């Protein structure tokens, strides 16, 4: 009984701690937002210029029709898998340690998906005609072709974006109610709408818990299908070294790998900035580190299986791509990538002592993300650069306009996340309370 009491007595403190990012803002925050806004504006300018003058502002040329935008698209969808994986899979397996991590990961999912959608638009040759992709009856008698993997992709991402918005919103309802009662001003009105009359009755709790229990397995299945379909975008094509059965699962694992690494960075930064040491403890970094070790091994295994098959088969079209990676024009980024996403995580994360070191884990997260970005580029560019007719072989490196758009979009993602942190409690308050209660009861 005395144990139980402590959770309840701690509640005012938990409320205060976790709502404080919403209530207090420092000048460094404004500075950070201002700097990010400048980068976003630069990126927007670069995109405007590209629309005005033509998609030729990229370095794309035939036969390399896809480049950094599609690579970024794949990368950002990968990041969006962080939230669903962590909160979905860990909720399903009833892993108690997930509680302080889920909300910030889910927030990453939503932000990453918004950003992902942008890359489709950057990529289009005639972006002002994007609505040709939407199936609605029109006088042009146009209809999208659902046999195209790109339409599968559009459908899957629409589903995923809708589902993950719902998935982050549902557990937020009690927290919105909490904020509604404690925050004044225009935000109170917004919170009142978003809390849809939450008052914490058992009927509401039961409904909410049931809904979360139903949606969790569904969203995990959506997550797996989404990145599989992103993999299908490539593996359905006849391009040598794309046409591979391993692409779908490989993409899913790769996505989780970069997603977890991103969560590691977010966890570290948020903990530092908002003094969440009482909630995000070393234990959480350690558990994430273990998961990251698993995805490293899994991804390395799949990559090895894929490359070994190409190497031993020695089909000329495929081996040309592999040679360009191993010791050709893409060797430098390739070996850099291999050390970033396989070697460095492996040699660091296997040490139990290292997994206790948040700064180190955060740095490994950064390295993995850098490596995964390069990996996405290396999946897309070298196969396209080596078509079967060797007369057409070519090379590619992103142009300044492309790089400006990529950086601007990264800044946009950071900006959206920073703004969201001021509106949404980064740790699910009621779930944290519940977790504490469970911990004290057992």
């Amino acid at each position, binding site marked *: 009984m005395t144990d139980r009491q402590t959770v309840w007595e701690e509640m005012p403190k938990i409320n205060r701690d976790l709502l404080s990012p919403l209530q207090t803002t420092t000048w460094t925050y404004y500075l950070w937002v201002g700097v990010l806004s400048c980068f976003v504006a630069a990126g927007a300018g670069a995109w405007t210029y590209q629309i005005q*003058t*033509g*998609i*030729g502002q990229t*370095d*794309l*040329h*035939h*036969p390399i*029709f*896809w480049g950094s935008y599609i690579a970024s698209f794949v990368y950002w969808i990968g990041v969006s898998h962080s939230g669903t994986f962590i909160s979905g899979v860990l909720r399903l397996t009833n892993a108690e340690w997930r509680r302080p991590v889920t909300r910030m990961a889910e927030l990453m999912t939503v932000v990453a998906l918004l950003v992902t959608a942008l890359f489709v638009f950057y*990529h*289009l*040759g*005639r*972006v002002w*005609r*994007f609505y*040709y*992709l939407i199936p609605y009856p029109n006088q042009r008698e*146009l*209809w*999208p*072709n659902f*046999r*195209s*993997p*790109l*339409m599968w992709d*559009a459908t899957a991402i629409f589903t995923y974006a809708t589902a993950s918005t719902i998935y982050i919103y549902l557990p937020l309802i009690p927290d919105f109610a909490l904020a509604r009662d404690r925050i004044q001003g225009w935000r109170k009105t917004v919170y009142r709408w978003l809390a849809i009359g939450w008052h914490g009755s058992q009927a509401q709790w039961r409904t909410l818990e049931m809904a979360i229990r139903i949606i969790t397995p569904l969203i995990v299945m959506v997550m797996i299908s989404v990145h599989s379909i992103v993999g299908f*975008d490539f593996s*359905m*094509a*006849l*391009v040598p070294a794309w046409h591979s059965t391993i692409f779908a699962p490989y993409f899913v694992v790769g996505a989780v790998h970069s997603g977890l690494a991103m969560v590691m960075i977010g966890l570290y930064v948020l903990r530092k900035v908002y003094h969440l040491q009482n909630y995000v403890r070393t234990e959480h970094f350690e558990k994430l580190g273990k998961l990251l070790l698993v995805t490293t091994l899994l991804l390395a295994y799949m990559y090895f299986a894929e490359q070994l098959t190409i190497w031993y088969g020695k089909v000329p079209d495929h081996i040309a791509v592999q040679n360009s990676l191993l010791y050709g024009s893409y060797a430098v980024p390739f070996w850099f990538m291999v050390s970033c996403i396989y070697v460095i995580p492996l040699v660091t994360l296997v040490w139990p002592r290292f997994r206790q070191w948040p700064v180190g884990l955060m740095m490994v997260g950064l390295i993995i993300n850098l490596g995964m970005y390069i990996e996405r580029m290396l999946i897309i560019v070298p196969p*396209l650069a080596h*078509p*079967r*007719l*060797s*007369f*057409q072989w*070519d090379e590619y490196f992103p142009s300044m306009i492309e790089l400006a758009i990529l950086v601007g979009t990264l800044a946009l993602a950071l900006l959206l996340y920073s703004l969201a942190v001021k509106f949404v409690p980064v740790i699910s308050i009621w779930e944290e309370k519940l977790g504490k209660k469970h911990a004290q009861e057992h």
Partner: protein
Amino acid sequence: MSQDPQATEEYSKKAASPYKWEMVVDLDRCSGCEACVVACHAENNIRISGEEEAAEGRAINWIRIERYWEGDYPNVKAKFLPVMCQHCDDAPCEPVCPVYASYHTPEGLNAQVYNRCIGVRYCGNNCPYVARQFNWFDPHWDEPLAEQLNPDVTVRSGGVMEKCTFCVQRIRSGKEAAHKEGRRVRDGEITPACVQSCPTSALIFGDRNDPDSRVSHLKKSRRGFHLMESLGTHPAVTYLRRLSE
């Protein structure tokens, strides 16, 4: 003959038209002079790319002569391979287009609808012949070159995919002329610009459904093969091997 019977049968199900346009490229006759490339540019309003754009790989060519070197110096031989859209019966570019900009006409042509194209460029990736060309910028012709544009051919804006059409405008006017006279198109009546301008007659165009057409005869040649036949794309262009091989 390389066309497998199953594919021909499948094709006949798709084809609702009396014509099936095909081309034969006799590699033994090709001298690599690129007259076809020039003729194609003039006929089809292909945008002019400067030296710089060409160096960036942005020059558009609906037909190109690929040149491969064989042997080591000093015993080198240049081999020429004219490559244009192969108008595959099972074209990999068609199903991947999300907006039906790339589709199959009843006459077996692989058509590109410029107005529909939004420039996702998946078709370009999926074409094993790299036949598809993209307009990276809006087209531009210096005066007075703009005066010589072919009125029968659309000028493509920036951001759309394009490729060899087998000079569909010539096919259409040939068919109309024949239709007025109430007859089928005669063999040799329709010639795409490249075929017309080939000094060595290495390119032959005609109706595959007409058993007496030159294309039908040449296709049966023992020299005949298709480019990357193993991919199962069933191209409408047949290449004839060089005699020296």
